[in-house]
């Protein structure tokens, strides 16, 4: 399977301390890679590094076979989209929120008018188009945030624990809608979570990061059956997934 992103010998520091060390990691094209691990393990650091919001101390990131550093930060970031834990919607209407990233890319107005309602519908919030972001519930806001990212049709979608602040029924509802959408659009996705259930439901591949190091990568079944070491086994045993895995 072709890798959209390859990471080699990555070292990222935060405040002079190693926040993430990765010998090698590949993100397969068109697949969802779940990055799981305990709090503070370095999962979000990986995501921010992939978004070029953190500069690695050393190492190389290849994007579509090319060193990511050959492009400017803005050019590179226009190939990706980031969804954070909090929706961080702008203080305007839902429509304008989803249109924002398209406008950054100078997408023609007619195309914006076509794409925004389409993606709002796909995320089940088409009826909220004219509502102001401040008047949305947590679940609605996160759906809008996902629509805002997916409307960009990014080559790489980065999800940083986007459901962790939601109650279980709301979370389950969004996961049920998002999973098929990611498969249908073949969006390469890195999905950071500390919830194994979410990870197993959404992803075909799983990377375990513990203590700022990558410990294991594989399909969820293999990872659960054959943990790479004691710490991975301990982490997995503390959290038992019950969801349906992505086929």
């Amino acid at each position, binding site marked *: 399977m072709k890798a959209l992103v390859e990471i080699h010998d990555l070292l990222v520091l935060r405040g002079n301390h190693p926040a993430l060390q990765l010998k090698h990691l590949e993100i397969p094209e068109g697949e969802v890679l779940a990055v799981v691990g305990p709090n503070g393990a370095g999962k979000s650091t990986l995501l921010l590094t992939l978004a070029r919001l953190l500069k690695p101390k050393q190492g190389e990131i290849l994007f579509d076979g090319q060193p990511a550093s050959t492009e400017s930060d803005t050019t590179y970031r226009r190939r990706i989209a980031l969804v954070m834990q909090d929706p*961080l919607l702008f203080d305007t209407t839902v429509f304008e929120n989803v249109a924002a990233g398209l406008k950054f890319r100078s997408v023609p107005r007619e195309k914006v008018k076509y794409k925004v309602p389409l993606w709002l519908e796909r995320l089940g919030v088409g009826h909220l188009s004219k509502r102001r972001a401040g008047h949305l519930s947590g679940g609605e806001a996160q759906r809008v945030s996902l629509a*805002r990212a997916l409307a960009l049709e990014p080559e790489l979608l980065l999800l940083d624990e986007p459901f962790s602040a939601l109650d279980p029924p709301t979370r389950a509802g969004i996961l049920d809608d998002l999973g098929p959408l990611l498969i249908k659009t073949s969006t390469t996705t890195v999905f950071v979570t500390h919830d194994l259930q979410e990870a197993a439901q959404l992803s075909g591949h799983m990377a375990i990061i513990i203590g700022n190091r990558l410990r294991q990568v594989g399909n969820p079944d293999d990872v659960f059956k054959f943990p790479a070491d004691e710490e991975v086994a301990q982490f997995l045993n503390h959290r038992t997934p019950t969801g349906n895995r992505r086929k």
Partner: protein
Amino acid sequence: MVFDAEVFQITVLSLQISALATGLSLFIGLPLGTLLALGKFPGRSFLLSMVNTGMGLPPVVVGLFVAMMLWRSGPLGDLKLIYTPTAIIIAQVIISFPVVTGLTAAALQALDPRLRLQLYGLGASLVQMIWMLWKEARLPLLAALMAGFGSVISEVGASMMVGGNIRYQTRVLTTAIVLETGKGNFDIAIALGILLLTITFLINWALTWIQQRSAR
């Protein structure tokens, strides 16, 4: 005082000077406040402290400084700006730009710092990111504009010192009030005071309307 024509001229001059001074303060203060709020560079805290101190600059001290600079024998005397409307504008910009700068920095620092990451994560360029942050902070930024305008339209000490209160040339509403009070013409001074208050109210009312409309 030939009331109608002269008052009209004084009022127009006051508005022109205040509008220009506020505009220039915004032109300097908005980018500088943004730099201080978002930038990371040595001396940033010191600069921020300077700006915050500048927010409370006594106008007479500014007037003294600008007068010394523009005085005929001063370092900028050759420009022949002393006792001109330009001199008043210079003094008023020095008074109001720290206000706009300080309030801009505070407004942007009050935003969620992750908003910048989110904007970059959606592909915003630096300019687009700053524009979006200004839009997000539009309510306190309009308050900064109102505070900047308020500090110049009501200012009298510096205007008197560097403008000279010359009839038909540098007399503005505030200096005219001082003059008429000094002459014992309280009725005219009160009328001018009411006019100044009304103008200030109308402009702030318009800005508040814009501010509250965007808050909905």
